[in-house]
């Protein structure tokens, strides 16, 4: 199986970094669209409709994503900053914020353009410490200045955690995207980003599909009713093998590709599980209504909040 996929990868290798990935994604989307037409009338109407809604949303997301990556680095940066903004917006809307949190929340939102500015300036040190050092030191102080101690710890930790996941975590996507071969040991960051997003999102989709088809044993009962052991194992492994078609975008050997993709996919699963627990805590089913069939922005990028930092720091440690 992996040999055959590897051959397919060789075939695409000449098409250029992004063209290659775009073709693979295009093929999968065409396949999913064909399947959704075949399913129509064969499975219950509601399920068929949901399948099509999700497929259509993937067309939109893939188009926006590739469009941003292809255009130029500032468009890509703006897209990722917008994703952080929208995710943080969905998150704080669900929080039980106090009136005294207003100014601290304003600083939290203002940290988004600043964090992405460090990335635009290619300032790695500041990109790493801005949120977990400077913002984390400043936010509790700003809450203190609001002179309301009831609920202080809860507010401080909720806001900090939102910044960690949706600004710090997700901004790793933008950091990866702006790596260039001359500065990153011959690696084109856009290719690396496509590889990461491809394997993590495929893992999400395949976990869902395998879970529907073969799922028997719940992996996180009480937190995420749709996640099963069968879906998890099959989805994570299948997506890691499928990632081999994009190996040419990376500096990895075959075994390294599978290993790194496995780590990213498991981290992605962890991100999804954590965000499920957040939804449970707030008593909602979805974070929003941005994408039909997918829910809100966080419902789509939850796995990347974990996978992006985990993937990047492993790659940096061993390859950069």
């Amino acid at each position, binding site marked *: 199986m992996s040999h055959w996929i590897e051959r397919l990868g060789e075939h695409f290798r000449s098409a250029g970094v992004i063209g290659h990935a775009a073709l693979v994604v295009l093929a999968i989307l065409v396949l999913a669209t064909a399947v959704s037409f075949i399913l129509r009338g064969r499975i219950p109407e509601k399920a068929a409709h949901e399948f099509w809604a999700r497929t259509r949303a993937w067309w939109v997301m893939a188009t926006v994503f590739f469009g941003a990556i292809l255009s130029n680095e500032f468009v890509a940066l703006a897209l990722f900053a917008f994703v952080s*903004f929208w995710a943080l*917006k*969905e998150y*704080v*809307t669900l929080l039980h914020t106090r*009136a005294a949190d*207003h100014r601290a929340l*304003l600083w939290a939102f203002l940290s988004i353009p600043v964090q992405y500015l460090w990335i635009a300036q290619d300032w790695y040190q500041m990109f790493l410490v801005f949120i977990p050092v400077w913002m984390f030191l400043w936010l509790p102080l700003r809450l203190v200045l609001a002179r309301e101690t009831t609920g202080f710890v809860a507010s401080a930790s909720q806001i900090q955690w939102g910044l960690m996941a949706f600004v710090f975590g997700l901004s790793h996507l933008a950091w990866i995207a702006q790596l260039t071969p001359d500065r990153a040991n011959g690696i084109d960051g856009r290719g690396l980003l496509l590889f990461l997003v491809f394997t993590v999102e495929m893992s999400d989709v395949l976990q869902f599909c395998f879970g529907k088809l073969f799922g028997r044993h719940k992996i996180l009962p009480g937190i995420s009713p749709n996640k099963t052991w069968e879906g998890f194992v099959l989805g994570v492994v299948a997506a890691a093998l499928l990632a081999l078609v994009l190996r040419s975008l990376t500096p990895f050997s075959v075994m390294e590709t599978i290993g790194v993709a496995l780590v990213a996919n498991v981290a992605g699963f962890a991100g999804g599980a954590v965000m499920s627990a957040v939804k449970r805590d707030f*008593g909602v089913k979805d974070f*929003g209504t941005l994408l039909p069939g997918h829910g809100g922005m966080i419902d789509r990028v939850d796995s990347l909040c974990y996978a992006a930092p985990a993937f990047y720091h492993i790659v940096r440690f061993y390859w950069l």
Partner: protein
Amino acid sequence: MRRLAQILFFAAFVRPFLRLFVGMRVKGREHLPASGAFVLIANHSSHLDTVALMSLFPLRDLWRIRPCAASDYFERNKIIKFLSHTFIGILPIDRKHIRRDNHPLKVMGEAMSAGSCLILFPEGTRGEGEEVHDFKPGIAHLIESYPSLTVVPIHLRNFGRALPKGEFVPLPFFCEVRIGPPPQLVGTREEVLATLKASIVDLGDDN
């Protein structure tokens, strides 16, 4: 000229702001009357409330929508008076020195006979948090004077978190406008007020 300024203000600033920054959602749009005289009543906790309600209408109808506003606040100096009249088109209500010629009922009645529809915040002022406070009796007087008036209850959710009293920089909380069906109004003044308040409070329920 004023109408053009207002249309530009809403098209270029208010609508993109509500759409992209606030991410405003509207539920129950079908309850908005297409024509005739009506009054929108809503809970009030933010300066965003008025523009959010006005943005429910097409730009060409904006001039007809008159938010009733306390003249001691919205006409407190020349700049604020100019801005509130030019961009919002407030219907100034004097709540300090009520005389026969500036009586709120008279002012509102004249505006409605001129084809306007009113926005009224029956709590009288912006409240703290998401709680709906007791209504002032003015709306009940208005209904007594105009029994055929359609009153549309609206619940504004999260606007008070986005821009609370005393703050001037709005935060991008998702906000929701929930429009309900006009309630049947019978009984005494107190009963009418209770019915109206309940219709707004009920719209806020469910999560």
